[in-house]
């Protein structure tokens, strides 16, 4: 009985080590992800063409907004039923 236990433990240890090593070897020889993409690029679907964005204003002659500096920080626009104006001097 004691001999059987030792045998089972040895068997479990041996199969665990062998499984780990075989897994290591398999992963080491597997193709890398970018290699896989590269090899399949010849059959990749063409990129869709995006439609140009609609201007914020429908009226072209009023589009001075497009002349603003590209990277200037503009305050965000709020939409309200009626904005609250305040007066109290400055």
């Amino acid at each position, binding site marked *: 009985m004691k001999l059987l236990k030792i045998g089972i433990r040895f068997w479990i240890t041996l199969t665990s080590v062998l499984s780990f090593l075989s897994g290591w070897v398999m992963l080491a020889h597997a193709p890398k992800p970018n290699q896989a993409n590269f090899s399949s690029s010849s059959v990749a679907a063409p990129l869709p063409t995006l439609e140009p964005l609609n201007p914020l204003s429908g009226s072209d002659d*009023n589009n001075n907004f497009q002349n603003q500096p590209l990277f200037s920080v503009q305050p965000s626009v709020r939409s*309200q039923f009626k904005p609250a104006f305040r*007066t*109290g001097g*400055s």
Partner: protein
Amino acid sequence: MIRSIEFRAMNTSVMLAAEGEGAIPGMYAAKAFIDECEQRFSRFLPASELSDLNRSTGDWLQISEDLMDMLQLSMKYYAETNGIFDPSILSDLKQIGYDRSMDEIRAHGVNVPERVPNRTSRPAFHELSFDLATSRVRLPRGMEIDLGGIAKGWIVQKAAQLLHQYVEVCGVSAGGDILFIGRPLDGTDWDVYLEDPRSPTEMLTQLHVPSGAVATSSIMKRTWSQGEKIRHHLIDPRMGEPAKTDWLSVTVISPSVIEAEVYAKAILIAGEKELPNLLKRKQDLTFIAVDSDGDLSGSSNYKEYMYEFTSNAF
């Protein structure tokens, strides 16, 4: 639906509102205009056109059409208010410590020592000379100009006119100087909240204005300490000192934002006693004065612009 943007310019908060298809490009165009005007007409920027003018004292200087317009308007209102509106009080302002922007004063305090005012040391504003044919002006030696409020009113008017090229209905406010062009498309009036000068986060009343301008002048907004004294920015040109006023703030409702701005200041400085003389030729001017208890008084028609609240309205 009304679109609006808020931002800071001219050391105060600015709000633009517009209704219609061109609202967004129009508001950004108006903002760009206001930002450009600040660079041109601020006395705190050494490269501004106004600083050039103040450095040219004693000599003729060619100026832009816009600055000429502001100076001529200033002269008109100087005459109309018998000198109570006077943009040549800059040397007095500097003497009481307002020699840098209010943001800087709030951060670092003033470093101008308290002195007895010397009213006779500066020339009168009407001594300024114009040469319209060559677009030149000459400040008499010793005169310095602070366009302050009138420049703000002028910029609000021009920005509103610019925005109006994009939309039928719009409003522009800079530090409480407001001009509305057109009435909101739902047919109601514009709402304007009147701040309590004792506590500007609280509102005293709500006004309704179909179109036109509202402007307020207050002695409570720009205040600072100079030695033992609490100073404010409204100089009484007759004394060369911060005005001792009967009220804390005055609000004027008028078709013109420049007129509203000028008369709000003039009424506040003149006080109750001088009021009949000041308004002799402006009998129809609507104004609301707020005293130190927060009580309202004013022209005979000012209540027409106030909402009537019933007891259960709140």
